[in-house]
């Protein structure tokens, strides 16, 4: 049983208590506790269940590397699964529940899996569930799915109430890790005058040193840490950040750091998480080292813990993980744990040291304290079901014959340490195997490189392999100083503090305990605790040919759990190397990928939710549409009114009413989103002739012309009306979606191909509010407002434009007609748009003025047979397909897309061509329908001879009308073809089709009499 000790606990405030619940049980802890320390202090040793076998699991570590103690944190809106108890700071009112069990943590049905591990070896699912076929989907997969997964899913009916934000920072040096190495590196960089951001993932500075009894300059490490932090706080160029984890190192010195602003104080009105997006010249990874477990049978039972974690719980939080703890190790460092346990007044029945000899100062001290030290020994078995009751000892060199049983309730294990090289590796830094320390450390000759080709990450302290405190500070200092020199910011000479700690003898690389364990024992040695990957699984992978470490990882899922193998990877690959008879460095590691520890999706999305999820572009008339119940549709980031339903009206009713009103009197359309680009210069005409398929240079000032633009690949990309402003200047109208794209396209050609042409462009789309004043009464309403212009057909004919005043507004008027009625497209500076719109409505009352939306616009243009980019075109259509040959100049030698249109497939006479379609029964052809043809193609697909591109109910013609692309269409006028539907035919019936006659695409006013008045 674990419990709170009566004294000690450097991080907790014993004077105060805070309450929390675990699985509904009310418990208390102290400020400064983590959830894990508070649970241990409350005697709660089982904290979770493993993934595959649902084995009961206790906490094994004390920090970010924890694989077992994962909980559901919070409830309802703030529920968060898979939260590590070891990194969760306790706060008042915290609620946590354990995961992955049914019905309870103590009694889990899933535990039956644990009885069958023999039948569920690595990759068993690849070998079974194959027959019968239907069973996979209906029986096996649902079963696997149900038992998989870890934390409880959040409730879909709740929304995360918290806010998140990003913060962009620019600096010279980012230091990850606020242990003594990170602090020393910060001192050096700070003194050198570099801009520094120092991030520490926990809530405390100093890392391991205070727990490990390190002395610095003759004083406890803690004093040096406090002093150093104070010095650093005094430096203007150094920025210190706690609770901030450097999550990833990316190319060109891009760093993501994850600040948990309010996880420990959820009631605060602050962002919950802040994602730091940092550009830095250099990174110092002072991320320390992680202790490795040892692989002995039963090493996964609750009560078996990392030795360093055990002393963290004692020293930091005043928690005893057990009364009688057996320490098992292959190195000297674990002796510190034995001594710490002893010092806390608890019992260490023995230290089991796998090395044949152990005689360092720490060993001697342990012996002097009366602790029994057994060398050359290992653990053959851990007894106990839901906790430890005893361990059985054996010779490390043997096969595991039990020599002795030792009664105990906890085991502290240490398999040596591995530097945390993740940040070095994210961007391609290479590692080298350190034989003496039995770990991978950064290969200084092969660092990750930045945009200049220089190495930009260094590791410092334990992360660089300088595990021992004595080396750690000098290593950090040297690493930082070398790096500063490489940046041209050398640090001034300064005395480096001297750290001292007991000398340590070398460890013995022990990967399996006992060394000669047979298959039965190996199948009880856990490597990956969360994913239940055992030594036997890795050996199986090797045996079956999954030899690459990447294959083994994927076959066994080693290192793929939420801890990403922080504890298991090195042990796993050592076992693999052994099974393959290879050297460890030849087998290599798997790829280190960000983030270092998981980060919330909320933080990644940042502030972008709700109203500011995306920019929503508003025209100057936007509010009017909203006030008038418009149904808005997104067009790119714009919102446009689709229609304006009145009480009781369906969208379709509204559209029909809007069309009738427009054709019958006066309609108004907000056309402000149309792109408007000015093209000016002596070479403007020449440039326009390259941009458009037709001849634009011949357009006269005061006139408009419809034009088509193709990509260099020949396809129609945009269309619109061009107005010639003066000899030098054109105004190009583009589609709503086209404005930015076309402007960029123009600049591309001007800057990169025809840079000697004298042409300037400007995108003035948003300068203007543009309103379509449409219908037989359009002229009347403008005249009614009062104007200094002559708006008669003679003075301002169809496809002419002019500028002047109307009703006091500065206005440009274009006689263009997308709806096929008399119409005036008028534009005023955006600041006057709303006033003009209101004035038009007021003046238009007597003409039955009606605002119409994009759908009415679409239907009216279809009635006129005008094409729509995005409907008649889809990126595969060339103007020739649309019968727009009249808009393709035959005279011009060149235009963008011309050469492309000469390729064989583009000139193929069998390309489908645009026609009108009239259903025989007056119905509307379904959207997207294909014209069916006889037979099937070589791949058994039904043959087609065309497709519908636009299809509507026409309130004007009171029937369905459509346009479509049809094989030889223009030559088949009057012919009836059939369009398919997706309605499933009844049994035995042939699929239903819609019959339509091929007609001219111009359904309404073919002579253009209405627009030309």
């Amino acid at each position, binding site marked *: 049983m674990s419990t709170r000790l009566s004294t000690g606990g450097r991080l907790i405030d014993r004077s105060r208590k805070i309450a929390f619940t675990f699985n509904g049980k009310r418990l208390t802890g102290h400020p400064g506790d983590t959830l894990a320390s508070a649970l241990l202090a409350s005697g709660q040793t089982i904290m979770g269940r493993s993934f595959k076998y649902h084995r009961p699991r206790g906490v094994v570590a004390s920090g970010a590397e924890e694989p077992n103690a994962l909980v559901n944190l919070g409830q309802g809106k703030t529920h968060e699964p898979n939260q590590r108890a070891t990194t969760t700071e306790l706060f008042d009112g915290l609620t946590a529940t354990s995961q992955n069990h049914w019905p309870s943590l103590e009694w889990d049905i899933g535990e039956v899996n644990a009885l069958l591990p023999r039948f569920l070896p690595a990759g068993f699912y690849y070998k079974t569930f194959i027959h019968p076929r239907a069973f996979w989907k209906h029986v096996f997969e649902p079963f696997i799915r149900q038992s998989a997964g870890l934390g409880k899913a959040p409730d879909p009916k709740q929304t995360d109430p918290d806010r998140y934000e990003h913060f962009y920072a620019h600096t010279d040096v980012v230091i990850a890790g606020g242990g003594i190495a990170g602090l020393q590196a910060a001192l050096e960089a700070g003194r050198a005058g570099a801009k520094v951001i120092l991030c520490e993932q926990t809530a405390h500075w100093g890392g391991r040193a205070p727990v490990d009894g390190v002395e610095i300059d003759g004083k406890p490490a803690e004093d040096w840490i406090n002093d150093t932090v104070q010095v650093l706080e005094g430096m203007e160029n150094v920025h210190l950040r706690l609770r901030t984890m450097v999550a990833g190192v990316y190319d060109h010195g891009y760093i993501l750091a994850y600040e948990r602003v309010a996880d420990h104080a959820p009631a605060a009105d602050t962002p919950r998480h802040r994602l730091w997006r940092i550009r830095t010249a250099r990174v110092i990874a002072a991320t320390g080292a992680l202790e490795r477990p040892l692989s002995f049978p039963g090493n996964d039972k609750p009560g078996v813990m990392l030795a360093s974690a055990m002393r963290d719980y004692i020293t930091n939080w005043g928690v005893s993980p057990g009364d009688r703890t057996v320490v098992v190790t292959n190195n000297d460092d674990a002796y510190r744990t034995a001594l710490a346990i002893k010092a806390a007044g608890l019992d260490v029945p023995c230290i089991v040291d796998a090395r044949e000899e152990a005689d360092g100062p720490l060993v001697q001290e342990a012996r002097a304290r009366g602790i029994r030290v057994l060398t050359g020994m290992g653990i053959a078995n851990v007894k106990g079901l839901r906790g430890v009751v005893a361990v059985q000892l054996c010779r490390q060199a043997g096969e595991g014959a039990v020599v002795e049983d030792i009664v105990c309730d906890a085991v502290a294990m240490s398999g040596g340490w591995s530097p945390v090289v993740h940040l070095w590796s994210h961007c391609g830094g290479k590692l080298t195997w350190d034989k003496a320390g039995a770990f991978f450390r950064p290969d200084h000759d092969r660092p990750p490189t930045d945009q200049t080709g220089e190495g930009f990450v260094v590791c410092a302290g334990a992360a660089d392999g300088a595990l021992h405190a004595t080396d750690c500070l000098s290593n950090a200092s040297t690493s930082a100083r070398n790096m500063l020199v490489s940046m041209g910011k050398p640090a001034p000479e300064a005395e480096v503090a001297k750290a001292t700690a007991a000398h340590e003898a070398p460890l013995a690389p022990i990967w399996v305990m006992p060394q000669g364990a047979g298959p039965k024992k190996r199948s009880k040695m856990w490597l990956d605790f969360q994913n239940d990957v055992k030594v036997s699984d890795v050996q199986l992978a090797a045996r079956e040919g999954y030899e690459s470490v990447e294959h083994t990882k994927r076959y066994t899922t080693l290192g793929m759990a939420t801890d990403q193998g922080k504890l298991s990877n090195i042990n796993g690959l050592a076992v693999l190397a052994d099974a393959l008879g290879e050297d460890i460095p030849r087998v290599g590691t798997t790829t280190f990928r960000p983030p270092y520890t998981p980060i919330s999706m909320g933080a990644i999305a940042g502030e972008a939710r709700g109203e500011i999820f995306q920019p929503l572009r508003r025209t100057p008339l936007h509010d009017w549409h909203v006030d008038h119940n418009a149904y808005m549709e997104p067009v790119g980031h714009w919102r446009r009114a689709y229609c304006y339903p009145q009480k009781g009206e369906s969208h379709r009713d509204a559209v029909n009413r809007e069309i009738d009103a427009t054709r019958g009197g006066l309609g108004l359309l907000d056309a402000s989103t149309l792109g408007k680009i000015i093209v000016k210069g002596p070479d403007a005409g020449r440039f326009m002739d390259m941009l458009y398929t037709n001849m634009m240079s011949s357009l006269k000032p005061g006139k408009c012309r419809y034009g088509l633009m193709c990509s260099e690949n020949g396809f129609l990309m945009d269309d619109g009306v061009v107005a010639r402003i003066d000899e030098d200047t054109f105004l190009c109208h583009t589609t709503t979606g086209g404005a930015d794209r076309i402007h960029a396209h123009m600049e591309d050609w001007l800057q990169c191909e025809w840079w000697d042409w004298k042409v300037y462009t400007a995108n003035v789309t*948003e300068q*203007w509010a543009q309103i379509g004043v449409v219908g037989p009464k359009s002229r009347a309403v403008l005249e009614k407002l009062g104007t200094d212009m002559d708006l008669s057909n003679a003075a301002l004919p169809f496809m002419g434009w002019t500028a002047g005043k109307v009703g006091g507004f500065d206005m440009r008027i274009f006689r263009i007609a997308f709806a096929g009625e008399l119409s005036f497209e008028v534009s005023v500076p955006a600041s006057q748009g709303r006033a003009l719109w209101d004035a038009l409505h007021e003046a238009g009352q007597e003409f039955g003025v009606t605002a119409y939306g994009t759908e009415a616009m679409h239907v009216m243009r279809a009635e006129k047979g005008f094409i729509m980019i995005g409907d008649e075109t889809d990126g595969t259509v060339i103007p020739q397909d649309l019968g727009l040959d009249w808009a393709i100049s035959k005279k011009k030698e060149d235009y963008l897309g011309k050469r492309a249109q000469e390729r064989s497939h583009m000139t193929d006479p069998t390309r489908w061509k645009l026609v009108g379609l009239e259903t025989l029964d007056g119905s509307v052809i379904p959207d997207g329908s294909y014209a069916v043809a006889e037979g099937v193609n070589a791949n058994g697909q039904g043959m087609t001879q065309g497709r519908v591109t636009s299809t509507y109910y026409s309130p004007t013609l009171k029937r369905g009308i459509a346009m479509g692309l049809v094989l030889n269409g223009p030559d088949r006028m009057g012919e009836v073809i059939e369009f398919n539907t997706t309605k499933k035919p009844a049994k035995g019936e042939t699929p239903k089709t819609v019959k339509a006659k091929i007609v001219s695409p111009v359904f309404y006013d073919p002579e253009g009499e209405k627009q030309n008045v």
Partner: protein
Amino acid sequence: MSDLVKSALPGARAEGLVSIEEMGLSGMVTLRVDLSAAGAAIAQVTGADMPGPRAISAGQGCHVAWMSPDELLILCDHARADAMVADLTAALEGQHHLAVNVSDARALFRVSGPGGALRDTLAKITPADMSADALPPGEMRRTRLQQVAGAIWFESETEARVICFRSVARYTFDLLAMSAKPGGAVGYH
């Protein structure tokens, strides 16, 4: 008429770690011309020296901002913009150029408050370096304001300007207001 003429978010204000307010209509003229050959004309019309790259220079009742080697943005009174275009066109007669009134295409915000908080607030929405060394008063940085294009410059250590397209004025305002929300202090700059 004048009361009918409206900026993108008339009167919009938000208070937090810093204050944000929409500044109403402001005159803006885009001038595209070979800057190396247009100094005299610019000086004649605006009274301003030709700004160096990214700089803003002050003229008579207007400011001239460098946008690219062949583009300036001239900021002046809203009412003066059309005349400014006409004057520039006249002064650059015979020289290839494009002067156009873009006053209504944009929205302009004043963001003011303590220097550190001001730069921190802006650093939540732009990848550009908001430190005083990187963006001193008198220099304009065209950049991205999270998902839209915009520009930022400092009038002084305690007052900045943010400019964006009119259609996204609401987005930009909301973004600034969210970034300035109390509780979100960073303390970096």
